[in-house]
């Protein structure tokens, strides 16, 4: 099997290399790939869209339709994980710790539960004492990470960045919260319902912008026709459209990252995990 695999892999590799034999040298500015459409994007983007970041302009405007589906791909992964793993049955056994004394309680009756408050706290089955340094550092860091994420989203058309990147950063801040505290803390602060709504809403903002363009009489995702809605910004209307969809992407990506994380680490129970 391994030898067979090796032969197949080598043949594929050789075949792919054969295809590159006619390629222009690496970095050749006159290769066909860099002329034709690509050159147009570089030369005309600013003129047409007023977005200095060509990549963002191509991503969200020229090929914005691709990107909408790309967001949908992410959304699908999230909802797929949810559908596959989410397990609404409660856990059979619960662990609590008595805060004043540190005594651990193990309750086997699934119907009984204690109220969480000053006296009792949740505890995971494999309990690791919360690390004060970790907790504190993360508590300080998380708001900054989130601000940075918002910045990356908002400045997508000016500098490297955009909805995906910002969304991932924001999502990772939430994941950090779960890692440094525990999963319950995250789930308590950001409910599953909220994440679900956000995930769908983010993609809907994108698609909704497109539909709005349809309603305004243009083609789908033709931001140009939105100008009447934003008086005085006719020049920048395309960049503005990009911003709107970037925000949508950001929201969706953030929510989906978190959904995937929560479901995988807790095997769908949303109670305890990494």
């Amino acid at each position, binding site marked *: 099997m391994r030898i067979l695999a090796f032969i197949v892999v080598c043949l*594929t*590799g050789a075949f792919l290399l054969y295809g590159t034999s006619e390629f222009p040298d*690496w970095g*050749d500015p006159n290769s066909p790939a860099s002329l034709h459409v690509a050159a147009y994007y*570089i030369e005309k983007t*600013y003129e047409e869209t007023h977005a200095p970041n*060509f990549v963002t302009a191509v991503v969200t405007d020229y090929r914005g339709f691709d990107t909408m589906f*790309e967001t949908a791909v992410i959304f699908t992964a999230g909802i797929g994980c949810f559908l596959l793993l989410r397990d609404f049955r409660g856990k059979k056994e619960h662990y609590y710790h008595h805060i004043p004394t540190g005594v651990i309680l193990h309750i086997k009756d699934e119907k009984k539960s204690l109220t969480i408050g000053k006296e009792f706290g949740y505890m995971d089955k494999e309990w690791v004492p919360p690390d004060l340094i970790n907790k504190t550092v993360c508590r300080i860091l998380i708001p900054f990470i989130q601000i940075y994420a918002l910045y990356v989203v908002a400045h997508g058309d*000016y500098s490297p960045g955009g909805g*995906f990147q910002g969304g991932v950063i924001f999502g990772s801040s939430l994941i950090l919260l779960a890692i440094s505290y525990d999963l319950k803390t995250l789930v308590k602060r950001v409910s599953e319902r909220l994440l679900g709504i956000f995930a769908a809403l983010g993609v809907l903002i994108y698609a909704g912008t497109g539909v709005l363009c349809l309603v305004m009489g243009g083609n789908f995702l033709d931001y140009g026709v939105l100008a009447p809605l934003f008086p005085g910004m006719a020049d920048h209307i395309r960049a503005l459209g990009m911003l709107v969809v970037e925000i949508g992407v950001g929201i969706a990506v953030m929510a989906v990252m978190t959904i995937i994380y929560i479901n995988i680490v807790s095997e769908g129970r949303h109670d305890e995990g990494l």
Partner: protein
Amino acid sequence: MSDVLSLIIAKYNYWLYVILMMIGLYGMIAKNNLIKKVVGMNIFQTAIILFYVSIGYKTNAGIPIITTADTAHGVVVKAADYINPLTSCLMLTAIVVSVATFGYAMALAVRIYQRYQTLEEDELRMRLSEE
């Protein structure tokens, strides 16, 4: 010989991508552990991303973002000065796809492990034939 060598040097990016891709593909076909296969898959997809991104590269060109200084004075933008934005754009999509697939594959692995308590393919096959 030197011809071949110079050919390789001039296009070593493609050689790298092919080798990376071969590693990934080999992992997907030959490995027994499902997680390893998933990782192989990820390497495979990354190789393609590498390929695309290297297509877009141009020597002596900068990132495809106009600085404020450029725009202010109405400088004519020359294509040769910026690397190709299109391939980066395409690869953003490919990355997202590969992340999504990876995430979902992981979720599946979790599920399979829950059910069979193993991720080794031969053991899984044994378990399935037992049922």
